[in-house]
């Protein structure tokens, strides 16, 4: 070809366009360099050869609408020019990001579907900056989100969803680990008896009838909540640690005690507890699948108290039956004030376990159990 013809052809080649079709059917053309900046379009052109003419327009994913497309191409048009300095690019990016949040979200989505990673990062970071430091109400307002969490879920954002099987498995692993840790501790200081089963029934019965237990009631329809347990342990550990130091000083077979308390008010009680004596039978609690409740409103507390008394009575009578068994779900119903409640197995499974006795004062006669902690016998 002659020089002149080449010169004529070149400008045409330089102005090559790529044809794109958005999900709503509108077709537009963009300069090739700009469009090729997007990996997805690039791929389509190279692999499938489409986009060269109006009839063979590249069909874009659904999330890209024409408005977003033009924004994206503005971005590409700026950044694909190699000669720009980093500072220039940054300044452009800052200005580019200034739009309302809805458009920002749509832009992120569109950029993601076109696989334009730098723009995705930029927009994601802008969204993160918007969310940062705001309260949930503000965030809901900005993004027009519905308020569809229960009060409970809102107050406890750190609670795990119980349905996750991974969590249940991990709970069991944690339980095992805790047991191992405690075993190691025990081996260091004390000679210990591991299994509840070997204890005599009388000891336990006498505990229920005569001792002054400061044990904690666990109940609730929630299943294992190891985190709350550890939370409990954590909150009471402060006072317990002082007590534990006393305990370790004792020259006996007494095991180190651990107390878990339900409410903050009980922590006061815990700190008043005297150190242990030898003759008191003090098994260790194993919080395997313990059920712990943090916030019990007064009405529920009352109900729980009644339940516990009832349970204690049943315990006396049915203890011989249930001891030695792995797990014994207990169903019972309580009548009081004319209302009848039926607590079914799924709601309140109680697992009879090691009971914690704490305190050296032996109260004669029946003792009102404020809280009863019921935990698992043996191992999982």
């Amino acid at each position, binding site marked *: 070809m002659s020089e002149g013809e080449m010169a004529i052809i070149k400008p045409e080649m330089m102005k090559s366009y790529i044809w794109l079709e958005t999900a709503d059917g509108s077709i537009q053309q963009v300069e090739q360099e700009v469009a090729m900046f997007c990996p997805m379009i690039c791929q389509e052109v190279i692999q499938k050869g489409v986009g060269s003419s109006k009839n063979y327009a590249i069909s874009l994913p659904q999330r890209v609408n024409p408005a977003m497309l033009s924004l994206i191409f503005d971005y590409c048009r700026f950044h694909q020019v190699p000669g720009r300095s980093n500072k220039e690019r940054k300044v452009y990016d800052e200005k580019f990001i200034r739009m309302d949040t809805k458009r920002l*979200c749509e832009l992120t989505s569109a950029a993601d579907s076109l696989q334009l990673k730098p723009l995705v990062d930029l927009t994601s970071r802008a969204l993160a900056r918007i969310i940062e*430091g705001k309260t949930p109400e503000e965030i809901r307002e900005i*993004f027009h989100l519905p308020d*569809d*969490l229960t009060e409970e*879920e809102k107050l406890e954002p750190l609670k795990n969803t119980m349905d996750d099987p991974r969590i249940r498995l991990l709970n069991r692993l944690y339980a095992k680990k805790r047991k191992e840790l405690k075993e190691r501790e025990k081996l260091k200081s004390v000679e210990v008896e591991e299994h509840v089963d070997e204890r005599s029934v009388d000891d336990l019965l006498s505990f229920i009838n005569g001792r002054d237990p400061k044990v904690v009631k666990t109940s609730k329809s929630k299943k294992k909540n190891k985190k709350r347990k550890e939370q409990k342990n954590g909150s009471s550990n402060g006072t317990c640690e002082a007590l534990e130091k006393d305990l370790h000083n004792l020259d006996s077979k007494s095991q180190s005690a651990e107390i878990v308390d339900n409410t903050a008010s009980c922590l006061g009680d815990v700190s008043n507890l005297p150190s242990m004596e030898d003759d008191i039978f003090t098994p260790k609690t194993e919080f395997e699948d313990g059920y712990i409740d943090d916030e019990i409103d007064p009405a529920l507390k009352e109900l729980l108290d009644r339940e516990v008394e009832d349970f204690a009575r049943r315990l006396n009578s049915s203890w011989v039956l249930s001891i030695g068994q792995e797990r014994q779900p207990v169903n019972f119903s309580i009548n009081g004030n004319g209302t009848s409640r039926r607590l079914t197995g799924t709601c309140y499974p109680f697992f009879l376990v090691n009971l914690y006795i704490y305190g050296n004062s032996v109260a004669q006669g029946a003792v009102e159990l404020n809280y009863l902690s019921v935990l698992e016998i043996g191992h999982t």
Partner: protein
Amino acid sequence: MDAPNPKRPCLVPLGTSSIENPCSLPIAPDFNQSNIDLTISSFLSLSDLPLFSLPLSIGCSFDRVLDNVIPSIAGTSRDEFDQDRFLDRTLQLASLLYKSTKRCIRKRATLQNSTSWPLLPELTIKVFSMLDTKSLMQASACCTMFNKCAMDRVCYSHIDLTTAAEDVDNGVVCVMIHRAGKELRSLKLGSISSSAEPTTSLLTRSCLTPLTFNHGFTGGHLRSLHLYHLRMIDCGSLSPVLSACLNLTDLKIVGLISGSRDNPLEQLGLLTRNCRLIEHLFIEIYGAAGLITDSSLLEFAANCPNLSSISLLGFLLNDAILQKLIKGFRRLKHINLSSSPEISGCFFRGLELCGKDSPLETLILRDCYILKESEVLLFLNSLLAGDFKYIRLIDVSNVDGLVCDGGNRTFEPRFPIEELKKQRSNVTFVAIFESQSSLSSSSSGEVYSDGTSSWTSNYNSAEEEHDNDLDSV
């Protein structure tokens, strides 16, 4: 208004039957589910009837039905009992209906939200992974979709619980670590400002044990651990945790408790025994009084060959130990040994041998009580002679001034500042010798960097700057 409604009779029989037959309150066995559903749906569709001024009339109907419960004549106690039960049960039904409706509303909202939210879950998770921990928690309390996205483990890869130190307890830490799983990379706990009452912290010594669970599964992924003023944190409680953190490169403990008889360096060795990849070590120890032995130093040096930044505050290191330390860690770039009351500076002399090629970049010896002016002078002269070509920051500030040759203390040492500025212009030399309260513009404290003079701020922020320095390194 009182025209009988063909659908209303459904209610009345139930009411009357329960009054007549109080024993049948528990659901009869042949009253199957579809009947109940039909009854309920017909009751709920009552409100669709246009003929009546709706709430008013339904309210009146309710009143009428319930009024039937109250007997005109005082009945037997058994009747009263049944009436109580009936009314209680009605309340129960009302509350169940209310809760059920709320649940339905929530479910609908969730559904609508999931269709209208423009981002894919992966993108939402990506945005959340750029949030700090506190904002993440706020976001997770917004709606169910955010809640679910915020549970993804990528969001918990850098956990920073120092901003909410009063509310954090062991359970929270456990939950977060557990959620992070294998994505856990950095963990910061405690309250950074030591002015906060340490007793208000809810964290105990065992707060880090989740790192050791499952044979140290999460601990093994952890790269950076910062602990600020945790209660009663000592080597005994930390060493099982750190032995699980095999890939730890950055360890910072502010407020480590040491027994008065324990060799602090040995304890340090115990702590870092398994962390062979450690590069940045910052330990501020309280109560260290034990003797430091050479063997413990050797062990420590052998265990952590990659150490490039070491900050040991409150350790009773003396010059000999320091010299060996610097020689032992070949890659040491940043040294901060502030508050070491036994360092007089004669270790500088020993450094001359390795001074030429020393990779040392930062040397901070603030508040070293017996630091001698002459020794610092020697060091500066060696700088002028060309040693320590990588050094960038030297800090010998001291509230009590430096020790002169005569045994007095000087607040205006004679250092060759001008020549230093000329020859080594990229070196920052910090030497503030007055307490911050009496700082004035023309007093003896001087800071030079690139020929300009400006004050450095007080210790804490200088430390943070130092940290930032490290971060950018």
